[in-house]
């Protein structure tokens, strides 16, 4: 838990003792983009899947008997919340891997951070389109339903997690702090969910509409939902790959900044 080894996984292998050399390394060519052939393949696949989603979600699939056209919102709403949960699970697993593997690779920390960022965006999308769907189906934007309430608290919890990631300090400090918090969130979310469920089940008030969002889907509707899940999974994968690489480059830039700063610091004394 207390390791502060040199960071060896940013690809930063420069020696640090020679100021002249340090000055050189600042200008070494860095990768100019976070794209690789893998990201391009995933990216194109995501675009194609999204196009399919538009075609099936808005075009080929029929309107629902009860919800009518509003059902189309679910093809975005459901996949985003699934992916958001997946993203937060990834954050938790990566946090645990950072803390409990002997190497304490910063790669896990970046994966945790990137996944949480994407998860927060997806939850935000879920909440917004969910509110629109609620207005059309229930007649209100918001209901104090167990799932909605948990989702809202989930959103705030991970916004807090991202705020802690930005507190500053060295990479190792950031990594350890946020990894611990990433695991505490795993403790928090089930408790929140449990309490909210208990609250709603004991205080069952008449819902605005009979449906709680679960509808019998079949044929094209189910297929559209399936396309949505594929499309957003690809989008998640694509964003993850880019974001993790971008974060690695940010860390690298800061490390190079450290080398330049070291050189400047040493020069202060005329040494």
């Amino acid at each position, binding site marked *: 838990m207390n*390791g502060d*080894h040199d960071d060896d996984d940013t690809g930063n292998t420069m020696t*640090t003792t020679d100021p002249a050399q340090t000055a050189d390394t600042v200008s070494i060519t860095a990768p100019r983009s976070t794209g690789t052939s893998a990201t391009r393949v995933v990216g194109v696949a995501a675009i194609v899947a999204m196009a399919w989603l538009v075609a099936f979600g808005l075009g080929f699939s029929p309107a629902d008997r009860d919800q009518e056209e509003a059902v189309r919102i679910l093809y975005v709403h459901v996949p985003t919340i699934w992916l958001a949960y997946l993203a937060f699970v990834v954050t938790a697993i990566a946090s645990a891997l950072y803390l409990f593997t002997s190497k304490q690779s910063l790669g896990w920390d970046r994966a945790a951070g990137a996944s949480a960022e994407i998860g927060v965006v997806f939850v935000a999308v879920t909440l917004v389109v969910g509110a629109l769907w609620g207005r059309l189906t229930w007649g209100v934007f918001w209901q104090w339903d167990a799932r909605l309430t948990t989702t809202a608290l989930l959103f705030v919890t991970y916004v807090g997690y991202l705020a802690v990631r930005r507190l*500053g300090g060295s990479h190792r400090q950031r990594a350890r702090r946020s990894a611990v918090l990433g695991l505490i969130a795993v403790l928090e979310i089930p408790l929140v969910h449990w309490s909210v469920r208990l609250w709603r089940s004991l205080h069952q008030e008449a819902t605005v509409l009979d449906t709680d969002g679960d509808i019998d889907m079949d044929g094209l509707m189910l297929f559209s939902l399936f396309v949505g899940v594929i499309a957003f999974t690809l989008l998640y994968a694509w964003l993850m790959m880019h974001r993790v690489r971008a974060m690695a480059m940010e860390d690298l830039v800061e490390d190079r900044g*450290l080398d330049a700063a*070291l050189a400047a610091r*040493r*020069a*202060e004394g005329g*040494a």
Partner: protein
Amino acid sequence: MSAAEPASSSPVIVLDEVVAVLGRFPALAGASLTVDKGEIVLLQGPNGAGKTTLLRLCAGLLPVERGVGTVLGFDLATQRESVRPHVGLLGHQNGLYLDLTVRDNVRFWGGTVGATTAEIDAAMARMGVADRLADVTTRTLSAGQRRRTSLACLVARRSQVWLLDEPHAGLDASGRDELDATLRSAAAAGATILVASHELERAGSLASRTLDVVAGQVDAHRPPGASR
């Protein structure tokens, strides 16, 4: 605590090309030094040279970013928690609870290592805060009196390595003499003391060695073959 007792021949503090950062600023840009048991070493240098960072690093408060450092045989990269109980740091802040009395403070800090009442009284007496000042609220003390209280806490905590940042600042003449006497007797009793100070004529007479800290760098490995 006995587990931490280094072999008598091995140096207490060894730093080799240590780099430490505050945020993204490399406050230490390559510090190398060796300090033996019972030495009083003076660190001198202008403000911002990295003296305070060096002391905090030796206290196990900062991670070693690059290079290698050990205190009492503990690695400053991986065993910082183990270093801390044996080290006393007196920085710009005194680590006191300002709403408590002098006696409460010394009792609390002594209590964290299970010090006896006799030890606590002795520590207060040694730093001259025993009688009139003992039951005064720390907030109302002068800077020098607070410093002496803080040193009394250090004594009560039985630290083996003392890291003192400008310890003479704010002390009057008699306070300084008392401090010097305390430091000498502590060193004679086996404590290793690092003092960062501007006041060379004062601290210089106290120290067994003086090291220059310049732009985050120190180069003071013991000359090969030299022994104390």
